[in-house]
């Protein structure tokens, strides 16, 4: 498998609604996948939507090299995601993929994955990847409420899953950083991978720094191209303004200008 970006029409083989705001698209590629790494994303062309001019970026939720399918976990936010939620099996979707860098393979087995909202998307693929390398991470997932908690069994195959909801209707109650695993004096993890809203990632990064735990986060950003040519998606790093779509979306928090 080579590292190559493609522009390709993939076929929708399944569209599963998880709850009123989330759905999973399963997409079949016409040719054998190139190598895809955990943390990478795709740029989706939303057709027949008058208000979506640019493509929409989504993390790769999981990859099945045997079936040649990949899955996207999508939260309905605006016109683009609303249009995608209506796709049916047999429809086609144009993707540019795989894009961006990836989470790195850690030098430890004490790994924690932290995801919130649709930021859980890349963590499933990462957990699978870690398993292949004999790492069984702890996976802490934050949701708004019970109704949105989903795929717990899927994640459980790859590690120990902890759940926290904003309203306490399932698992512990509060934001992910309120979870009891963070309340100890010494945390048992040597590496944290985190993806979610900015505020959540910053809070997790703060804990990681406090406990001197190595931590990688997957940033969101407004993207025009997604493959490095427009310079619209930059984030300030120790090397100046870097592109989230090429040098990221995954950054080690030490490289970011988060205080």
């Amino acid at each position, binding site marked *: 498998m080579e590292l190559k970006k493609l522009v390709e029409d993939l076929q929708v083989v399944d569209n599963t609604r998880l709850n009123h705001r989330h759905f999973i698209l399963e997409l079949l590629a016409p040719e054998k996948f190139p190598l895809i790494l955990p943390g990478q994303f795709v740029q989706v062309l939303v057709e027949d939507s008058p208000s979506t001019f640019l493509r929409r970026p989504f993390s790769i939720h999981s990859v099945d090299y045997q079936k040649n399918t990949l899955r996207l976990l999508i939260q309905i936010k605006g016109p683009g995601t609303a249009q995608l939620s209506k796709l049916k099996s047999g429809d086609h979707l144009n993707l540019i993929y795989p894009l961006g860098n990836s989470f790195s393979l850690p030098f430890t087995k004490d790994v924690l994955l932290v995801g919130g909202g649709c930021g859980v998307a890349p963590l499933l693929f990462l957990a699978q990847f870690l398993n292949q390398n004999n790492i069984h991470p702890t996976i802490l997932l934050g949701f708004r409420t019970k109704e949105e908690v989903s795929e717990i069994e899927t994640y459980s195959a790859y590690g120990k899953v902890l759940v926290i909801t904003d309203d306490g209707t399932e698992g512990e109650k509060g934001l992910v950083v309120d979870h009891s695993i963070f309340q100890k004096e010494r945390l048992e993890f040597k590496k944290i991978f985190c993806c979610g809203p900015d505020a959540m990632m910053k809070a997790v990064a703060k804990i990681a720094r406090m406990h001197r735990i190595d931590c990688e986060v997957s940033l969101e950003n407004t993207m025009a191209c997604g493959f490095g040519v427009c310079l*619209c998606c930059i984030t300030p790093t120790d090397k100046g303004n870097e592109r989230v779509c090429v040098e990221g979306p995954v950054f080690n928090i030490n490289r970011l200008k988060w205080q």
Partner: protein
Amino acid sequence: MPDLSIHIAGLHFKNPVTTASGTYGYGDEFRDFMDLGKLGGIFVKAVTGKNRDGNAYPRMAETPSGMLNSVGLQNKGVDHFCHEIYPKIKDFNTHIIVNVSGSTVEEYVEVAERINELDNVPAIELNISCPNVKLGGMAFGTVPAMATEVTAEVRKVYKKVLMVKLSPNVTSITDLAKAAVDGGADVITLINTLLGMAIDVERRRPILSTITGGLSGPAIKPVALRMVWQVHKAVHVPIIGLGGIMNATDAIEFLLAGASAVQVGTANFIDPTVSVKIVDGIEAYMTRHKVKSVSELIGALRTE
């Protein structure tokens, strides 16, 4: 087979389809998607005298049939371009044209002089939409006398094909085009982005960190076509037209309005292979309409 090749200011292009500065990186990023050799040329990202970090995030807002950007000429400066980038791109099988930017006449001249030494860069495109820091931020491209001056000064040091890219944010685009030609421009490129703004009503804030930014995409195509048409009637140098070109039909509109070649900009973000499709589409149109040479289309709009 129809002949798509064209001469612009003595320079031979295998076809009239090129890619716009700031939307195609240095070409490299597109090699996974397409054969760069299929293009007439590549206009690389703006090069300035020194390293520039560009503007703060957020730099992008989506708008109806278009987008705003406020990248702000982020680049590592002309030294870095000559030593690090040029060697990697100089043997692409297409023309590499450098978009030259600056905040003072001296900076434009300095960059042009350095690029003049690069054998495999047959032309530069002066991006005169930048604000003149000495003159309080008024853009070089909005005052005819300033456009003439910066072009003339660069002309003194730059020996190859000199293109000048104009800003559409002016009362009279023909005055600016004439001013650039007076300064010695061989070619006029039209248009850069329209100045626009986007607001997030929930947060009651501008979306861009810079409040205003440059509008590109299909939304601006009618304005771009109008300006190409006006300038085509007013000056006698070749024009390179752009603004919202998404497909071959759009490109042909620009040729008919008077452009000798086109640049594909924002469309590259949506379909990185679109420029090749446009080459093929122009060829198909020519075959269908029995047009032997693409030069027959240039300015061929019937208005009688």
